[in-house]
């Protein structure tokens, strides 16, 4: 279906790109900032810094006390958070529309004046919190380190995507307050961000408010671009076999894919969907339903902007089944798709699923603001949110096969397996 969300765009004198999408149907407004700094920007020795800021940005700034960012917004009915990814960091809140000025003021104060409040004490405390986050999200759960292992295999050493956003705890431990301040000065400024405002506000009022709170901030020197990560498909099989106390044996294969924003990536993503998405995907049909050698399968593409993306396929072996059987079946299905292509029905199914996912992503003001920031920051074109479905619908079965043949091959993959340690007699 054609989408027609209204969009208005201005760039302030200090370089801040502001995008407004007015929607008066709900009495709420979403504010969303994407900073052009993610883990791919981190040089060796400074891994985990972009994510560390996701924490430090809530510890107060020149005119905002520590903790006040949350409490001021929560008491006016906001939902708020931040997230870090390979390509970017984002900060966001949605709230009743009468709180728009407050949200913008808080975002501007930390964009301009975070360092006034960034003390050794805050740094030490949030470094501890990040370590607990790593323990909780990576170390204390089965298979929790699989992506860390896989990106290390899939990309050359020091490639921008060869480390995860959480970074190395040794790097964080070694960080001085001055290192952290320098990282902020390098990347956090109006000309390295997109501000999106969506919801119950007129376009004019939204731009006025953006100028009122962000207009006086000074531009920063143009940050260095992230290192170019352009790289072709893997041409070998790289393995990491782990013996551990896991509940079931598991395999994940990872493939390099074309960069985001290309029809080739859309096609490769649809190829992985034909294999692994939903209940009707080929892998679920064969491995889970028909042969019952796997308890579950999953997979999909993870679009990235820096010259290459990646995608995964995962299978968890059924009890008593040798994981090798799962690996063999995955390899067979991968090659079958590359050699034999997909049916028109399969293509229509994964396109219909992609359409629902996209409509759901845009169904809240917060979700729409996030996608607008995304497409404005990484592609310079927020209107891509309105044309995204058409792009996916335009992909042909031939393109899917051609992308699969080039990028999703048994002979070009990184692979991690987890096998249960033998129980002691």
């Amino acid at each position: 279906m054609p989408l027609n969300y209204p969009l208005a765009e201005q760039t302030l004198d200090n370089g801040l790109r502001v995008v407004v999408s007015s929607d008066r149907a709900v009495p709420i407004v979403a504010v969303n900032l994407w900073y052009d700094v993610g883990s791919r920007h981190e040089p060796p020795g400074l891994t985990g810094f972009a994510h560390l800021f996701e924490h430090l940005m809530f510890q107060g700034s020149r005119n905002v006390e520590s903790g006040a960012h949350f409490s001021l917004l929560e008491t006016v009915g906001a939902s708020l958070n931040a997230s870090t990814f390979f390509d970017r960091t984002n900060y966001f809140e949605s709230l009743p529309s009468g709180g728009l000025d407050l949200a913008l003021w808080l975002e501007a104060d930390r964009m301009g004046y975070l360092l006034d409040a960034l003390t050794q004490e805050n740094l030490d405390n949030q470094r501890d919190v990040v370590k607990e986050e790593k323990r909780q999200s990576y170390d204390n759960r089965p298979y929790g380190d699989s992506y860390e292992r896989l990106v290390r295999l899939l990309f050359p050493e020091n490639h921008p995507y060869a480390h995860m956003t959480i970074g190395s705890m040794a790097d964080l431990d070694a960080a001085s307050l001055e290192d952290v301040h320098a990282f902020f000065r390098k990347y956090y400024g109006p000309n390295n961000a997109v501000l999106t405002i969506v919801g119950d506000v007129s376009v004019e009022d939204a731009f006025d408010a953006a100028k009122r709170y962000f207009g006086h901030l000074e531009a920063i020197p143009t940050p260095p671009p992230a290192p170019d990560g352009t790289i072709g498909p893997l041409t070998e099989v790289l393995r990491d076999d782990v013996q551990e106390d896991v509940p079931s044996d598991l395999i994940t294969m990872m493939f390099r894919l074309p960069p985001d924003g290309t029809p080739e990536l859309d096609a490769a993503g649809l190829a992985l969907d034909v294999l692994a998405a939903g209940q009707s995907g080929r892998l679920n049909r064969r491995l889970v339903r028909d042969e019952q050698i796997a308890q579950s399968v999953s997979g999909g593409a993870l679009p990235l902007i820096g010259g290459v993306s990646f995608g995964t396929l995962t299978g968890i072996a059924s009890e008593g089944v040798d994981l090798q059987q799962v690996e063999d079946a995955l390899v067979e299905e991968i090659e079958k798709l590359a050699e034999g292509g997909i049916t028109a029905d399969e293509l229509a199914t994964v396109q219909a699923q992609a359409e629902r996912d996209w409509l759901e992503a845009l169904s809240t003001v917060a979700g729409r603001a996030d996608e607008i920031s995304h497409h404005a920051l990484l592609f310079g074109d927020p209107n891509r949110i309105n044309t995204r479905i058409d792009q996916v619908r335009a992909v042909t079965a031939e393109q899917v096969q051609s992308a699969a043949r080039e990028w999703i091959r048994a002979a070009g993959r990184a692979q991690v397996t987890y096998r249960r340690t033998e129980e002691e007699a």
Partner: protein
Amino acid sequence: MNLITTPPPVTPPGPWKFPESTATTTSAGTPVHIFDRPGQYVATVRVTIAMPLFVEPRELEGVATIMSRTLDEGTELHSANDFAAALERHGAAYGVDVSSDALHVEISVPVSHLAPAVKLLAEAVTRPAFNVADVGRHVTIRLGEINQEKANAGYRAREAFAAHLFDTSARRSRPTAGTPDTIRPLTNVQVAEFYRSNVGPARAQILFAGDATGVDVAAIVDDAFGDWRAEVAPVLEAPEPLYLPGNRLVLVDRPGSVQSQLVIGCAGPDRRSAAWGPAAVANHVVGGTITSRVDTVLREEKGYTYGTRSSFSAPRKGGTFTLGGAVRTEVTGAAIGDALRILREARDGLTEQEVQEAKDSLTLTAPLRYEQADSIIQQVGSNIANGVPINFADTYMQRIAATTAEQATAAYREFVGTEGLLVVVVGEAKDVRPQLTEFGLGDLIELT
């Protein structure tokens, strides 16, 4: 340009009400609630069926879950593979949920594909085949899932908490989806029998939320569900669950853990209680957010944790209060000590300012919570399961808005710490055990 050094004023929003619905019934007499939400291009359609879990035979617990998971795994008209292909071809996603009191079966689908997708939803709900092979496969999958749960610290903690908070006479003392000894013997015969006794139009309500512009939702639903004629027995009212009172400390050994997963809690109000409202306000102050009393100390001052959260929660009967989170192994004892102190000190009173801020946050976030079609259906489905009106959110918000600091404190005091507190720790027992001697919670109960 002038720099603005103080927070700009906030214009308070107008009054909020839960979205309105129109009610109809199918030809079979099943109530239908339609929430027309312009701009919500992905609709959610849910069938909520009253199905108290306590009616499961003790030796076959989990039969409701296996039944729910095999509804779409082969019907009278489609094989499992063909059904999935047909549904997903319409851009639909399908899901089921079994709670203490109800079975929920739902689809999300672009409104443009509503009619054929609702037909398929009805096929799963009203004409499942329960083939031997499909049921057997799901029994095997459930057994594998139990292995995954055993390896998950959070799951282990919640399971041990339920087992030690509720008497064994309560269904809720054991996992909703069953245990290996009750899952293994299940066959398609028992699954089909449980279905026939519990799933029929007289127990169902059908919910729609989405952009209904130009779509006759009532007719589409009736076309799919109007000829549903299965007879089922009336719903039995679940007995009040028995709690085990007193302070208790349970340590579950999980070798190799680098953190300790904690759950601390006790009985709480259920939704019939007048405290359901004031208790939520108190919870928000004590442990409901990152700015709460607990996280201010455990996360922001001490850096023991990535974050903890507390909540009062309740199915139809048998409410609970829990505080949960993961803390570093070396500081497990210190973190429990701080948490217990904060939970107990809150009984001495919550301040006017704390309570006002909590009320504001809880009431003013309401329009955000129900913006999406699916979130409306989640709430309404849960209201039906819990036996409260479908617009109960309005009553709940009014109660919260009317709560005083005294009432919030009283609601909290009525439950938290009154009959003792149950502390569950899942972690590396050899490192954690020596840290658990100081709390006066009675003998340590150790589980492996």
